[in-house]
């Protein structure tokens, strides 16, 4: 017997003596291997059993004479000895492979390969059993999969699995889960579903099937999980729904699908009820939050309010608070919405934005309502701290409409630096005119000539009715409470009740005057209008001005501790150093006096007085109507869908009908009516010639 053979025999003995399940524990791969070696390798050896190793060895080498000699020897020792039936048949895992299986079980695969190679060298013609090679291959494939898994190489896992169908079909469940996840993550949804289906088809273990369903829910869209659920139930053995243990998870996934607009089918009331009870029982804020968002989506705001509140009370986060604030807004509990969004503004920027937008509308009203000084103060604080152009123009309008022009100027300056849209620049110029800063006003009117018709209209008025401005009269002095100076900003005083009454009084007065003025006088006044306007504009328009808007204001950072206080403490200026190493602006040429046509902008009021515009950058020489600001966003965008969705408008109508929301009713009216701004009427007929369809940005020339 060769030295090699003896060594093998010793190894076999070692295994037979120490064979224990522990030796089979896999090492390394994070998900533990569940591959096991065949029973034969670990079988307890029968001490009385004849040792047929040599017999098999000679058989393997097909040395028949030696086989016969060895057989005779064994017969002498064991009179009942019969040669094994598979002596010349295919190799099986056998006692001579025990050492190999040990290496296999210990995951020493490199060593196993070396040992096999060495033995093949020593024993020409010998080869390991099919069983061992097959299992070795599987284990190596599995290791590859989990190496990819550890590195997050999903695409590699997917292509590996696709190229090795055999492996997928025979893999253990853990590997199959990983492969399915890889398919799902790389968009190969059908392949992922097939893997899950295969698991259900070939496994009856209850826990394993449950876990598989949970994995599928984590990786697939719920619509695909529904298919799988139906399929899995077919192979279900038990009398009851085996997935009842994950029913809550299934409902949760269905709710998420509805919230993401991925599911059309309703979730049954009974199922929802079960989930709600579960959420209430566990008092988990995220579960309650899901229920609440679903209620919000279904416009069941009353129920949503209660659920959001419960979620907050149980530790809900800033996003839950955001949902609560939106629900309050939808119920027209705007004051409460304001409080919630303010309190939660620091952890989530969405809340800060909502806070600014909620009060902005109220502040911008033509006849401003009384707002408590503390609320104005904190609004001003958040505005200046976040450099919000939206907030600044809200404060600007509030101050302007309550006759506080210095305060209005403070806020409009910032608004124009941060977000110089047409209405904001208009408010700023109005304010400057009130403060007799005519030079600055003219600079702005000329800077925005060609871009903001409303601003240019201040020199070239239209013939339309404009409501009277109460600050023109004696009421101005008592139109507001005292403004409050803070470090770095100023808070407008609250608007007083005198404004609304005064506006009504003036309106009646004007109407009376209108009625008593003879038509002939009106016509004469109109005839003189043109001359008067042109004369007034002389030397003021057009004049050369710098093209750039020079206004800059840094935000003020509030002291961190002030964030929770109802009134912010004195803020400090954020000191940002001046940048170094920038180039000078190229020397400007002569500033042009003729405005060019800007695509997206309507006709300029100056055109009615004979001023002409040069063609736009894309050679367009017609004004755009309706202007960009009045156009609905492209069909198919969320913005357009929300504008056009009759269900949305219809629902608002219903809200209005049930007196749920006065502002919602206003919304309906706005949504139904032609879109118009600043009380402007459609363009007069004589301007039809200069109108065109909206133009587009054609190309960026380089």
């Amino acid at each position, binding site marked *: 017997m060769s030295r090699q053979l003896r060594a093998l025999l010793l190894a076999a003995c070692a295994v037979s003596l120490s064979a224990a399940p522990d030796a089979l524990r896999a090492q390394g791969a994070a998900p533990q291997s569940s591959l096991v070696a065949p029973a034969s390798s670990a079988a307890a050896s029968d001490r009385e059993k004849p040792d047929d190793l040599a017999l098999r060895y000679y058989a393997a080498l097909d040395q028949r004479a030696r086989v016969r000699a060895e057989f005779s020897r064994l017969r002498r020792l064991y009179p009942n000895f019969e040669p094994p039936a598979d002596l010349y048949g295919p190799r099986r895992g056998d006692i001579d492979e025990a050492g190999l299986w040990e290496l296999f079980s210990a995951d020493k695969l490199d060593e196993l390969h070396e040992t096999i190679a060495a033995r093949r060298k020593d024993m020409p013609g010998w080869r390991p059993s099919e069983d061992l090679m097959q299992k070795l291959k599987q284990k190596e494939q599995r290791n590859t999969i989990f190496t990819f898994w550890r590195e997050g190489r999903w695409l590699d896992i997917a292509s590996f699995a696709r190229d090795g169908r055999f492996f997928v079909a025979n893999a253990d469940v853990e590997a199959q889960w990983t492969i399915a996840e890889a398919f799902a993550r*790389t968009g190969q949804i059908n392949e992922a579903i097939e893997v899950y289906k295969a698991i259900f088809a070939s496994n009856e273990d209850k826990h394993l099937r449950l876990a598989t369903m949970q994995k599928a829910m984590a990786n697939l869209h719920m619509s695909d999980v529904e298919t799988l659920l139906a399929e899995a139930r077919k192979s279900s053995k038990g009398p009851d729904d085996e997935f009842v243990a994950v029913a809550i998870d299934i409902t949760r996934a269905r709710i998420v699908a509805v919230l993401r607009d991925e599911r059309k089918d309703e979730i049954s009331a009974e199922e929802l009820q079960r989930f709600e009870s579960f959420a209430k029982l566990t008092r988990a804020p995220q579960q309650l939050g899901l229920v609440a968002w679903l209620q919000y989506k279904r416009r069941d705001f009353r129920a949503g309010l209660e659920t959001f509140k419960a979620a907050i009370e149980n530790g809900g986060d800033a996003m839950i608070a955001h949902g609560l604030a939106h629900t309050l807004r939808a119920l027209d509990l705007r004051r409460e919405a304001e409080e919630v969004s303010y309190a939660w503004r620091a952890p989530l*920027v969405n809340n800060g934005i909502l806070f600014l937008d909620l009060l902005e509308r109220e502040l911008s009203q033509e006849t401003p309502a009384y707002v408590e000084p503390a609320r104005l103060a904190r609004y001003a604080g958040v505005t200046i701290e976040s450099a919000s152009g939206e907030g600044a123009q809200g404060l600007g309008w509030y101050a302007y409409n309550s006759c506080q022009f210095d305060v209005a100027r403070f806020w409009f300056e910032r608004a124009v630096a941060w977000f110089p849209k047409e209405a904001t620049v208009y408010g700023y110029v109005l304010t400057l005119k009130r403060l007799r800063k005519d030079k600055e006003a003219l600079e702005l009117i000329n800077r925005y000539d060609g871009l903001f018709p409303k601003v240019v209209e201040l020199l070239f008025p239209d013939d339309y009715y404009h409501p009277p401005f109460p600050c023109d009269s004696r009421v101005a002095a008592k139109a507001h409470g005292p403004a409050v100076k803070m470090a770095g900003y100023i808070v407008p005083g609250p608007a007083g009740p005198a404004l609304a009454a005064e506006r009504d009084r003036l309106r009646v007065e004007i109407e009376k005057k209108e009625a008593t003025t003879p038509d002939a006088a009106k016509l004469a006044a109109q005839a003189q209008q043109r001359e008067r306007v042109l004369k007034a504009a002389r030397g003021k328009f057009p004049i050369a001005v710098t093209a750039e808007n020079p206004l800059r204001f840094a935000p003020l950072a509030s002291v961190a501790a002030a964030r929770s206080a109802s009134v912010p403490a004195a803020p400090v200026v954020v000191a*940002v150093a001046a940048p170094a*190493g920038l180039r000078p602006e190229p020397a400007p040429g002569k500033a042009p006096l003729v405005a060019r046509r800007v695509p997206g902008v309507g006709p300029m009021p100056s055109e009615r007085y004979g001023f002409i515009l040069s063609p736009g950058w*894309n050679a367009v020489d017609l004004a755009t109507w309706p202007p960009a600001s009045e156009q609905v966003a492209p069909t198919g965008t969320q913005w357009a869908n929300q504008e056009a969705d009759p269900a949305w408008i219809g629902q608002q109508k219903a809200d209005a009908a049930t007196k749920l929301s006065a502002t919602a009713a206003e919304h309906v009216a706005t949504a139904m009516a032609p879109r118009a701004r600043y009380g402007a009427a459609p363009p007069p007929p004589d301007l039809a010639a200069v109108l065109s369809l909206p133009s587009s940005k054609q190309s960026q020339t380089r």
Partner: protein
Amino acid sequence: MRFLSLAALGLAVGLAPVAPRAEPLVEPLAEVAAAVGVPLTLDAHKIKLGGALKSPEAWSAYKKRFIAEQGRVIDTANDQVSHSEGQGYAMLLAVAANDRPTFDRLWSWTRANLMVRNDELVAWRFDPQRRPAVGDMNNASDGDLLIAWALAEAADHWDDLPYRMAGRRIAVELSRKVVLFKTKIGALLLPAVAGFNASDRSDGPVVNLSYYVFPAFARLDSVAPEVDWAGLTQTGLDLLEAARPTPQTLPADWIALEGWRARPAEGFAPEFAYNAVRIPLYLAWAGVGERAHYAPFLAWAQRAKDAPPIVDVASGKDVGLFGGSGIASIGALVACVVDGGKLPADFAAPKADEDYYPATLHLLALLAAQMRYPSCLAN
């Protein structure tokens, strides 16, 4: 039609709570590239932009040449005008260079001069020699994306609330006004609010694939997590494959999708030119795309390394050369990322006489290499 892509993978990985991989996966690329058909494995994990630019001299040189003291980025080859896109690029570079004073200048100028629309989007064109300086009320979606992305990165890097708020407002408005989320081919990014949809043009909707700023999609969820940015990435990659008749055809700058069949848009030159040349830069910068997505760009990059051509996509013929050697930096980056070559030794030192556009693209390619492909730069 479903295209398998690494994008879904990259974004999914980004969302999963797995630690970023410790080592960049660039090393094996040369080896991988040798084996045809082996999947391209790029590193798509999220990387913050703040402080990522490691070339202070290149940034100083850039500022001195293109950013005016008020914060306006000057297109030196184009009558000294400015674009929202240029403001966005410079803002990104300023965050990457950790240069807050300059970032602040750029953003302050941008909002004071370009945010003249009635919404949160940015007017795309500004010429201080004209009256008024804003030349068009329309936006450019890539400019909006770049600015929102830069604000989001600045908010993260300097922990700044006003930047975060402004970035969110722009990102959300963009998603509401220029993205068609539920088309037959997925989420479609229109190039602007006005002028490109099916109702605006007979061959509409029209898209510009270089407006799909893939690295922005990967990061904007930090300010607007409710938006399906991953969907935009997927559609961008899908369109890249769908928009070409053969796998080696380069995409045109402007692509018409009328009837959901892609062809070069009417009224634009059917060329792979100054717009589309940015597509491979954005792919590589985000670490998305498969070998097939890069194939035409790689062939283009390898064909004329020093003087990359503008290509007529219909005939496949070169119709001119890109102005400025900065464009070649994109080709060099693609060659390294896909094929494993090294970037030229002088890659980190952009030329001093470049105009705004090629100089900007070069600096962005350098930044992308420093962020995601450091081995490309190893000499």
